């Protein structure tokens, strides 16, 4: 499907105003619709980074597939990581409708110019981390994705709807693991609490900087690609998760955690934004390892990709020699 390139008179104020009015009225923008070049660029950036996150996200959890302690957990985790590959795939395909090839997007990830969610730069140190990730990281992602299911760009919204359906099992699986550990042996309970201690704050950081510090947001809100603020989403996640932690008798690692009767919100202590930026900028515990793993997989896989393409080209030549590729 070939989308329209931006018109020479692209940022015509009338067209732009019509475009923004359509979005305000709740219309969906599809690949062949006129769109401001900047909208297209923002979406390519957002969607490809989301896709990269799904793919890089396979690594911390994939780390425990071979050590999953029961057959049922082994199969569940393998299925979850497989789903993540699928989610990356849906979103890459959605991004391709905007006129960019997946090969190019992957190059951007591997050469470090594209970002991915920095939560995946943390290591998985015990089996309990698998529970914490499903519960908190997928939990946070669901809060974000539910909002994106109403994004103005059709292919993105549709990919999100598909993903949201599949995500619910991920979060439940994670929470069930934590619940089982928290009510298990003393060692298991300690393992679960330790994982919560390490994953709680990075999960809160997944929602991005406080609204007051966030630059891209206004434009993304106006264009219907972001419909709720970082802080709103973060608060929603906090309220859900605190209740869930209490239900399984685990302690949120925040001495300042307090319930505000008036707003009916759980308020948290200060988030360490130094840590956030440090990890985003490349100095998290696993940044190098994550990228190295993806680069290796991609490099090691080149002969395979090329072999398949070569074979197909030869077959095509055999079938219609007059239409040599």
């Amino acid at each position, binding site marked *: 499907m070939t989308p329209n390139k931006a018109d020479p008179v692209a940022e015509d104020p009338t067209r732009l105003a019509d475009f923004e009015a359509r979005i305000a009225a709740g219309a969906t923008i599809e690949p062949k619709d006129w769109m401001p070049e900047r909208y297209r660029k923002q979406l390519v950036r957002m969607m490809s980074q989301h896709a990269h996150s799904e793919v890089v996200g*396979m690594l911390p959890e*994939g780390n425990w597939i071979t050590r999953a302690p029961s057959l049922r957990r082994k199969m569940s985790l*393998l299925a979850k990581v497989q789903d993540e590959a699928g989610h990356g795939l849906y979103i890459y395909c959605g991004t391709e409708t905007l006129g960019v090839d997946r090969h190019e997007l992957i190059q951007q990830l591997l050469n470090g110019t594209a970002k991915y969610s920095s939560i995946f730069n943390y290591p998985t140190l015990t089996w309990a981390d698998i529970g914490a990730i499903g519960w908190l990281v997928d939990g946070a992602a669901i809060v974000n994705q539910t909002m994106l299911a109403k994004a103005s760009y059709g292919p993105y919204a549709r990919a999100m709807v598909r993903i949201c359906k599949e995500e619910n099992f991920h979060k439940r699986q994670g929470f069930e693991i934590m619940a089982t550990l928290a009510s298990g042996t003393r060692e298991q309970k300690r393992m679960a609490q330790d994982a919560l201690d390490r994953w709680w704050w990075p999960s809160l950081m997944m929602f991005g900087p406080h609204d007051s510090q966030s630059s891209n947001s206004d434009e993304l809100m106006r264009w219907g690609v972001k419909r709720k603020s970082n802080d709103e989403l973060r608060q929603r996640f906090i309220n859900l998760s605190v209740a869930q932690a209490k239900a399984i008798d685990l302690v949120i690692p925040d001495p300042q955690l307090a319930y505000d009767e008036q707003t009916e919100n759980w308020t948290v202590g200060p988030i360490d934004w130094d840590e956030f930026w440090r990890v985003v900028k490349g100095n998290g515990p696993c940044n190098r390892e994550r990228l190295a793993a993806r680069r290796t997989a991609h490099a090691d896989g080149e002969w*395979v990709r090329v072999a398949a393409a070569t074979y*197909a080209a030869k077959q095509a030549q055999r079938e219609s020699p007059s239409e040599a590729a």
Partner: protein
Amino acid sequence: MVSASPAAVPNEFEYLLRLGDDRLVLGHRLSEWCGHAPILEEDIALANIALDLIGQANLLLGLAARIERKGRDADALAYLRDAIDYRNALLVEMPKGDFAVTIVRQLLYSVFALLQAEALQRSTDADVAGIAAKAVKELRYHVRHSADWVLKLGGGTTESRARAQRAVDDLWPYTGELFLADDVDRAVAQTGIGVDPSPLESSWQSTVRDVLGRAGLTIPDSAYMQRGGRQGRHTEHLGHMLAEMQIVARSHPGASW
């Protein structure tokens, strides 16, 4: 429905371990690719095959445990047996290697497993027959997937053909074991619960040689066939694989997950 007579139980138990262990070990090897496959579509495809095999293993080991009647379950069999008590064929415990090794091994195993499962659909044990019927559908797909890839690798580039040929050469000596029958096989074939693997070989040869031939790959002349897996005499690879697979379960005796 556990219907084996007391005398038959050890043989049936052994036989089910062989079926289950093949699939568990191979499924585990395939799962090692998750997040590292050559392309996203293949991450998904290999995970699918791994899930099918581990699912079959779970059912077969569960059945084995019930027949044994010693209070074990599938997890106890999977996570608390040492390598010398595993009964998988040596072929499936080989490291995953490069993509060619994985795909060639998958072809060699899946063609065998499909023939075996098709025959097991007629098992006199209803549970075995049921597991086999479901497995047949899955294994047909595994054969299709791996055969398609073998053709692509053999007929692709110089490099892919060289890697595929190396894989065939290295793995071929492990294929004979699949068809070696012993007293256990003969006993279960007698009662109709299981299937003697040796009659399956000629169909296997014919299918495998056809695919490899079309892929431009040659088969080594009379290789000595390695054996021992069915009796617990494994390569050094299995010990390392199980050490990784079992570490968490063994570190917390009696815990539930």
